[in-house]
């Protein structure tokens, strides 16, 4: 069993290593230099690194700070109208295909945007504001959910004690709420920082010019036109080093935020005063509106298209293919995640925490490895060795699986560690075999598995980067079709297809919410 885990960990690691090997090993010029060290003293390089850090830091900070009051409102007012739907909307926002988000933001906040007239003469979406708004939109809802979950981990006894001690609002905040959030905050910050640090499409679309260049964008640029592999490698190592070490550090500092009893069902929370309740409702409504507006702003564009004449058949097949690929990649990612977590769980029960931390880092390393380098590197490695025109789709599935693996790991890990804490000794003392063990774990894991599967599905459905390299035109996916439409003047068709993609995503979220509710009622 441990061997299978090591194998899975090795596999996910091998993909990254092989990709780097592919790039390093490719020699078009015959020169020996593998790294472009001159770049390190180039002013351009410094500004790229600095901008990457600055925008990621600001995005993560804003997302966390803005999420906090909303998470509190949700926590203290379980009776908010459509609360569960709002939490689903949060999932949808987090996995929103960036193409759709960008279109929505431009329709809302661009020069002719629906609410731009109220933003003053000097308003300009493009540049740092646009990047920050898009990043906050993607990550704030995620932060809300995480913070809410952490607040829900506060045991009833703490609140009862607080009531007995007659703690004031400020004291409750400082002594009860903050300790529950603090440990998770650093990790959350690290996670959002890494996502924004590696951001690509948002920066390219809303950045506004060469001022706004992140490392991921610079890697793309050096691989695309210049095919300058030494430069791309130098940038890639820099990115891996910064994002990787930060992620490792924050993981370490962050402690184990999941080691509480999982209780999404609240029992007892202090009831805030009437004024506070009004404030909570206001905060909640503002957040919901902010998440909904960019989506609603898409509708006018779609209405301009003659829907009766629209070729629905042309997008039915790509829609199916998208779902199919995402389903296979999602299932694969879940199985792989389960397996890659085995070594770290084993190390943890043995008390070898540093080893466990290393295993954790390895199983989520794809989060910090530059996606562009992984796909291009593998392409370079495989193209001369394999008929990619026939096997390309296999790699679309495989790479999607590897790139969403970290999310699957993060979803499953807390629950599995909790299982280990509660049952590992028992399982060991009973000397249960693998199958029997699975039979015990499954009821415990079922809900986490299915909700994670929905997330995997959503994440894989938005992919264009991998498809653009490995995909074949016979198997066009919906996101790729949208790019195809847009690339040939068919902006109207592109917006209809975008809305369809969004609706499919929403449907998946809705189904998963429905399921979750069913589980709670059961």
């Amino acid at each position: 069993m441990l061997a299978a885990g090591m194998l899975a960990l090795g596999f996910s690691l091998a993909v990254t290593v092989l990709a780097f090997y592919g790039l390093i090993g490719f020699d078009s010029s015959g020169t020996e230099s593998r790294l472009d060290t001159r770049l390190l003293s180039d002013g351009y390089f410094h500004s790229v690194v600095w901008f990457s850090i600055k925008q990621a830091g600001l995005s993560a900070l804003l997302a966390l700070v803005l999420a906090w009051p909303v998470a509190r409102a949700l926590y203290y007012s379980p009776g908010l109208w459509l609360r569960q739907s709002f939490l689903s909307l949060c999932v949808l926002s987090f996995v929103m295909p960036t193409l759709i988000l960008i279109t929505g933001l431009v329709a809302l906040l661009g020069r002719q945007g629906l609410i731009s007239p109220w933003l003053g003469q000097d308003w300009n979406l493009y540049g740092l504001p646009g990047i920050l708004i898009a990043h906050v939109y993607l990550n704030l809802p995620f932060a809300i959910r995480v913070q809410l979950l952490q607040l829900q981990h506060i045991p009833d006894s703490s609140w009862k004690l607080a009531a007995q001690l007659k703690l004031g609002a400020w004291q409750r905040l400082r002594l009860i709420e903050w300790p529950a959030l603090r440990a998770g905050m650093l990790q959350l910050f690290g996670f959002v920082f890494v996502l924004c640090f590696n951001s690509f499409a948002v920066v390219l679309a809303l950045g506004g010019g060469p001022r706004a260049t992140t490392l991921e964008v610079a890697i793309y640029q050096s691989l695309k036109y210049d095919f300058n592999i030494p430069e791309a490698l130098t940038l890639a190592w820099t990115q891996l080093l910064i994002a990787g070490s930060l992620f490792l550090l924050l993981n370490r500092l962050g402690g184990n935020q999941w080691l509480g009893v999982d209780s999404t069902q609240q029992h007892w929370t202090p009831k805030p005063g009437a004024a506070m309740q009004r404030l909570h409702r206001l905060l909640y409504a503002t957040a919901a509106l902010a998440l909904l507006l960019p989506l609603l702003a898409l509708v006018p564009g779609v209405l301009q298209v003659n829907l009766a004449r629209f070729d629905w058949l042309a997008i039915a097949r790509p829609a199916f293919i998208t779902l199919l690929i995402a389903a296979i990649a999602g299932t694969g990612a879940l199985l792989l995640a389960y397996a890659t977590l085995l070594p770290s769980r084993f190390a943890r029960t043995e008390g070898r925490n540093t080893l466990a931390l290393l295993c954790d880092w390895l199983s989520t390393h794809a989060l910090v490895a530059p996606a562009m380098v992984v796909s291009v590197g593998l392409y370079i490695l495989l193209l001369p060795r394999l008929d990619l025109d026939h096997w390309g789709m296999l790699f679309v599935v495989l790479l999607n699986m590897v790139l969403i693996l970290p999310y699957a790991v993060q979803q499953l890990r807390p629950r599995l560690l909790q299982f280990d804490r509660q049952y590992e000794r028992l399982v060991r003392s009973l000397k249960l075999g693998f199958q029997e063990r699975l039979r015990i774990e499954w009821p415990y894991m079922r809900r986490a598995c299915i909700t994670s599967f929905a997330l995997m599905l959503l994440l894989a459905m938005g992919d264009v980067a991998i498809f653009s390299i490995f995909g074949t035109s016979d198997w066009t996916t919906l996101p790729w079709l949208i790019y195809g439409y847009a690339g040939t003047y068919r902006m109207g068709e592109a917006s209809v297809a975008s809305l369809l993609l969004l609706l499919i995503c929403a449907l998946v979220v809705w189904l998963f919410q429905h399921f979750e509710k069913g589980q709670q009622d059961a």
Partner: protein
Amino acid sequence: MKTIIGLCSALAFGLTQASQAADLRVYTYDSFVSEWGPGPQLEQAFEAQCGCDLEYVAVEDGVSILNRLRIEGENNKADVILGIDDGLSVDTRATGLIEPHGLSISPLRQELAWQDDSFVPFDFGYFAFIYDSSKISQPVTSLRALIESDASVIYQDPRTSTPGQGLMMWVKAVYGDEAPAAWQQLSRHTVTVTKGWWEAYSLFLAGDADYVLSYNTSPAYHVVAENKTQYRAAPFSEGHVAQIELAAITSTSQNKDLGRDFLQFLVSPQAQAIIPVTNWMLPVIDNVELPPVFGELISPQRIGFSAEEAGASRQQWLREWRSSAAQ
């Protein structure tokens, strides 16, 4: 459920089926082979003529064709590459995988002034700034006027897109050593610089800029496909830079005669009537029957640099742009 099973088995089949060698393999870019692009019609017409089997292998865009050749080297599967533009021709030739076609190509349009023994042009267009004439009644008449104006502009990044490279050459051709100052001035009223053509163009259509960098043929699409006449290309007095799309046969091809036939076919009146209304570029030969709007497009003076000149200075021009436009 049946559909899903069908798709699953089709996927499995697609993954496992043995590759059936076509008679002629053409590397090209994705939008060329899309169902509304020129690919399918050209394939049908050429196959009827040669009685052979043509197969497209599509990659993301023009530069990806070159990158694929670089990676595959001698082991490439292409008989013909189609969709490299003149800016990439020097680098493509440098791979050593392109061979002179040895054809006498029937007279091409004079403005192309085309002299090359390996590459055959199949369409071309002039880079131009497009505006909405229902909003702007007095458009700028020169590149200098545009750069000195305060009109909002969207263009594409020269590091990731061919129109961006086109503008880089345009500015260089008009301003020479003064280019950095021009970029600085332009950056003051630039809305954004996008990764590729469509991002910029869709932002323009959403009303986010007065002018967008595109092609002089863009208005033809709006007239023919959408019956909209308000989008116009602004003619600039200094002249315009052209982009010429090229095809060539590979030196590794086993079927060079068929490849030559295909190149010859690409410049035939039959193919040249298909390409402009599907790829939205200009035909490379005269007297092609096209929708009337093609006769109303601006036909500017051509300026710019030879592919060799541009290839030699491109890196330096990019650095110049990068540092001046960032201020």
